[in-house]
């Protein structure tokens, strides 16, 4: 093949070759030239070649000029004594295979344009091959789908070395088609299983001793090497989370590979099968050890887009309990999924409240998922059948933690505690114990892990009394509620849950014009007067 300088030349040359091959079978050998360009160094040339291949094999597939059926190896084809046409078809089918392989390799090309083009071409082949299957139907109405080719595509997407998030987001639009989605799920479970099995499985790390100290847990987890590579996990998660099942059976109607008629016995037309595949895929993915970041991501979408689509949601219990045992933010997130399982799927979870109690540590007010956690905690503690000691322990623990909380969290947690007391009148002794003996020390034991033994009911909420002296007036007001008999209606937490420091700040700034209080002692300078703290400890020079 003559090499003209510049992409224009390449395109013209390729066009000529393409015409020749399509025009007469005698020129078939020019295919080799086209395929050779696929391995070129130049990005432009590769793109041209990919386009040429796409047109060439697309045309051939439509014409039916590729061999249909079990393909014998190339040597036997050449040596065999079949007719010339059959030989040609077999030979061409082999070229088609090598072309597909090349394209699969191009999915790892550094240039994104090439990757995108290769993906598009492969998907086009998938579509054409689905319409003109290259294998013989075994019976009438047999459902045929180019599975090997498609699996190759999925494998290319789930790379072990490179973050393919851009390509995956391109792929997302194909996932809107039901058949593609179904086969993606199947292929993805295969690929994940294969990758994970390539690395020997190690049992999941048990719960870190010491429960609440999740920071230590994280550290320990990080020190071990991950068996499944992080990049692969990321890619897999991208792909898996992009799969979203339709809600209703009737929604399955859009197919990527055009079919003349849909047969009822095809698995791909049933939502149940989709769900099964979905479940297999997620369980297969989640049973492996995953990095914490992926764990978090999975847990964030768990309640919304995974659990409702599973055929048997209770199977997710393994993953959720393991996550719940890790502690810290992960536990907070796992809580949501667990709640759905407990609430909707009748799951028994021993020591649930004890663990929830264990989750309460000072960091709970500073994590990102505070709102979600307190929303759930509110749900869990809303039952009126909880024993008083448990609720008292929670109230006491929360008020103890409130001593280190920022104002925006305090504005939320103080009404939370008051709501607890409202729901459970037996706990009101925490704020109202007339005639009780004066104590030397707080009987509450903060170190005790079992809420039953924490002796919270014998204590009082002195912490709230201390918070009545908080510097923020709103907080002080909220804490002063306990001075009176609690009003009957509960305070709605919903608007308080998402409160941020910035919102609190803005609200304070926007407060209407009141008389401006002024410092009456004249200022002496930047550091204040001589006896001020600043002046004592700092100098200007």
């Amino acid at each position, binding site marked *: 093949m003559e090499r003209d300088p510049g992409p224009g030349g390449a395109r013209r040359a390729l066009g000529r070759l393409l015409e020749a091959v399509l025009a007469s079978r005698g020129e078939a050998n020019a295919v080799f030239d086209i395929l050779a360009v696929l391995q070129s160094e130049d990005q432009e040339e590769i793109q041209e070649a990919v386009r040429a291949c796409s047109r060439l094999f697309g045309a051939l597939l439509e014409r039916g000029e590729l061999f249909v059926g079990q393909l014998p190896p190339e040597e036997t084809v050449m040596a065999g004594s079949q007719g010339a046409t059959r030989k040609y078809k077999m030979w061409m089918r082999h070229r088609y295979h090598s072309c597909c392989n090349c394209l699969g390799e191009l999915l790892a090309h550094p240039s994104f344009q090439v990757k995108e083009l290769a993906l598009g071409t492969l998907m086009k082949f998938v579509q054409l091959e689905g319409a003109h299957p290259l294998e013989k139907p075994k019976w009438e109405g047999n459902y045929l789908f180019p599975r090997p080719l498609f699996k190759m595509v999925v494998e290319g997407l789930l790379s072990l070395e490179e973050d393919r998030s851009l390509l995956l987001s391109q792929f997302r639009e194909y996932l809107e088609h039901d058949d593609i989605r179904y086969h993606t799920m199947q292929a993805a479970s295969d690929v994940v299983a294969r990758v994970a099995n390539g690395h020997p499985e190690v049992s999941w790390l048990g719960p870190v001793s010491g429960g609440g100290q999740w920071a230590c847990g994280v550290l320990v987890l990080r020190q071990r090497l991950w068996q499944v590579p992080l990049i692969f996990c990321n890619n897999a998660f991208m792909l898996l989370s992009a799969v979203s099942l339709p809600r209703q059976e009737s929604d399955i109607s859009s197919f990527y590979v055009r079919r003349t008629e849909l047969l009822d016995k095809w698995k791909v037309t049933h939502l149940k099968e989709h769900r099964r595949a979905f479940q297999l895929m997620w369980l297969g993915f989640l049973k492996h050890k995953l990095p914490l970041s992926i764990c978090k991501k999975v847990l964030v979408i768990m309640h919304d887009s995974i659990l409702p689509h599973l055929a048997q949601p209770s199977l997710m219990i393994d993953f959720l309990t393991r996550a719940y045992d890790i502690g810290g933010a992960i536990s907070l997130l796992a809580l949501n999924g667990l709640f759905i399982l407990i609430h909707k799927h009748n799951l028994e979870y021993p020591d649930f409240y004890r663990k929830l109690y264990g989750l309460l540590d000072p960091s709970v007010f500073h994590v990102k998922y505070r709102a979600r956690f307190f929303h759930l905690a509110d749900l869990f503690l809303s039952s009126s059948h909880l024993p008083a000691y448990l609720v008292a322990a929670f109230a006491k623990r929360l008020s103890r933690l409130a001593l280190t909380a920022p104002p925006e969290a305090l504005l939320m947690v103080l009404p939370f505690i008051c709501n607890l007391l409202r729901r459970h009148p037996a706990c009101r002794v925490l704020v*109202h114990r007339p005639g009780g003996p004066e104590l030397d020390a*707080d009987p509450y034991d903060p170190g005790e892990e079992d809420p039953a033994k924490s002796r919270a009911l014998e204590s*009082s*909420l002195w912490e709230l009394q201390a918070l009545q002296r*908080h*510097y923020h007036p709103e907080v002080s007001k909220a804490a002063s509620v306990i*001075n009176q008999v609690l009003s009957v209606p509960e305070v709605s937490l919903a608007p308080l849950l998402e409160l941020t420091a910035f919102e609190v700040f*803005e609200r304070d700034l926007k407060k209407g014009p009141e008389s401006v209080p002024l410092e009456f002692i004249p200022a002496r300078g930047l550091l204040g007067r001589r006896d001020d*703290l600043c002046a004592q400890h700092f100098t200007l020079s």
Partner: protein
Amino acid sequence: MGKARSAGARRKAPGIPVGARGGRARPNPNPFEVKINRQKFQVLGRKTRHDVGLPGVSRARAIQKRTQTLLKEYKERDKSNVFTDKRFGEYNSNISPEEKMMKRFALEQQRQHEKKSIYNLNEDEELTHYGQSLADIEKHNDIVDSDSDADEPGTLSAELTAAHFGGGGGLLHKKTSQQEGEEGEKPKSRKALIEELIAKSKQEKRERQAQREDALELTEKLDQDWKEIQTLLAHKTPKSENRDKKEKPKPDAYDMMVRELGFEMKAQPSNRMKTEEELAKEEQERLRSLEAERLRRMLGKDDENSRRPSHMSADDLSDGFILGEDDRRLLSYKDGKMNVEEEQSREASDGESEEEEGEDSGEEDPEESDDPDGHSDLESDGESEEGSGTPEKERRHAPGKRLTSDGQKAREAARTELPYTFVAPESFEELKSLLSGKSIEEQLLVVERIQKCNHPSLAVGNKAKLEKLFGFLLEYVGDLATNDPPDLRVIDKLVVQLYNLCQMFPESASDSIKFVLRDAMHEMEGMIETKGRAAFPGLDVCPVRCLQDVVKGLFVCCVFLDYVSLSQRFIPELINFLLGILYIATPNKQNQGYTLVHPFRAFGKNSELLLVSDEEDMATWQRKSLSLHWASGLKAQTKTEANHTRLSCLAVCLALVKRCVLMYGVLPSFHDITRPLRALLTEHLADCSHPRELQELCQSILTEMENQKHHCQPLICEKSKPVPLKLFTPRLVKVLEFGRKQGSSKEEQERKRLIHKHKREFKGAVREIRKDNQFLARMQLSEIMERDAERKRKVKQLFNSLATQEGEWKALKRKKFKK
């Protein structure tokens, strides 16, 4: 109503028999005409208006009304001519009846006059007064000298006036009656009457005069007598004028006292206190005059007459020179040469010149931009420079060289001296250009003078100007703070100015501070979102990564604690931060008893930031205040210095902890709050590697903590008021109308009421119309009947006459026959 009725009754009285009409008027109505609406139940308080009705009366009234109105209309239905009343102003109520009559009379006269004048040329109409011809009256013109009677000028005798002017109707009547009385014997002529009157009045006058003279005589006599008696009575000065003085008794002690008190020196009104405005005005006046003098000095116009101002400006050269006489001539020389001169003259003396020049140049910009006077100064400078070509040499060799240089110096001083008046800056840039390049004192002075020149009491717009100034100053301070290194000293001084301005305009100051705060907050929000850290974060926002962060945090803690020192508010973030600082000053270990909160991590890169391991540094450390420059990113020069700073930070931290412990000792859960701190402090103590001073501090904090009592009084809610029992007081509803239409809202009731009223009125109207129609029909019927009767009568008459005619004719015929 009653009135009308009675009037109607009276009117009816003569003709129509009273019958039904008089029913109401009579005290005892005919019982057969009274219809009584019997009430089933007596309702207390209900006013019954329709219990007794007089149907006959009301029917008669209605019929009468119809005859007056409807019947009239009916009768005049085919008539098109209208009666118009053309009497002047008959229906005009604006004109009073007298006026009306006058006009009418005038009109009538006019009409008559016009008619007559064509033919009667000489005929004057006779003017009359009370029916007497005026011409007649004028004929006896007697002059009564009324002015001779000076005592009572207004009261001419009534008869006289009556005789002259005819006024006073009563009098006239009296007179006429008098005349009527006298009429019998002899009617006096008018002339005689007048004469009589005159004579009478003259006599009266004479009598009065005589009386007065008598009185005068008598008083004189009395005086004389009195004088004589007076001399007899008291042997004192026989003056009649100060009689009362004589009579005054000798003042007793009380009176003396009263007088004395009365005449006692009262507090003299001194010069009143000057109001703030006046003070401001004076201050501005002073500054203005100083400015004027400065300008004069700068231009060299200072002559011997102008006394040296007593005020010494802050940067005045106090070299004590006095301007000599010769200056005046030489002052036209200018800078260009002057610098050389100066260098020559100051070779040894002072090295300040360079500095001053620098300031000078820095100062020129603001003058140019702000001060119109300054600008003109510069121009004139330029001119004089041009013209100074020739005298230059002269001056070179002038004998009074010393003096010249002194003069130059003075000018130089005046130049470097600040202007005394400033225009308030309109933008931040202006302020910046005013202040930049000046020394601290000068900047302060500038700001102070701007304030004084624009005191709000001096002009209306000054308030807004100063309010703006606050914002600009704030911005300027922010600018200074972001400099590298920050200009802390200037800020330190400017804070005082800010404070003063703030005291003057609290609202606007708080607004601008809020604005700055919001800006900072937004910036921080953005920074944290993008980078995860901000320049000057709150105590719990960003992780502490370096010594700078520690110093910043400690400073914020200090400020915070200062602010709550009086209110003793609880600040969880502060405790957390101090805990974190203590933690990063200890070696990491798995510990129990405390948990670190958000910005600090138990493990990791910065978890031993403040740990000092160098024994030697530890030993050489001296406790001293931290420099604020650390907060702005000062880097430690040596490792020792860094270590020393670390220890200082720790010391500050411990001091703050101590302060917190003292302050929060009264809080109910003090021990729960400080438990982590205590655990860490014991660790610090156990460490034993710290300098002695710090260890002592730790120890004292721990003992303080121990000393705080546990406050574990069980909580008790305040007793709330018991909810009052339900009482069965009736509900009060305002009754707008009796009946079923109750229990709805006021608007609804009002609407229903209106609907009801409309319905009632409608019914009434229909009834009225029906009755009208009946009445009319009745009238028409009677009319027809009347007509028929008339016709019948006429026909009968005709027949009668015909019959008689026939009879006569027959009789005649019979006669003929008989004949």
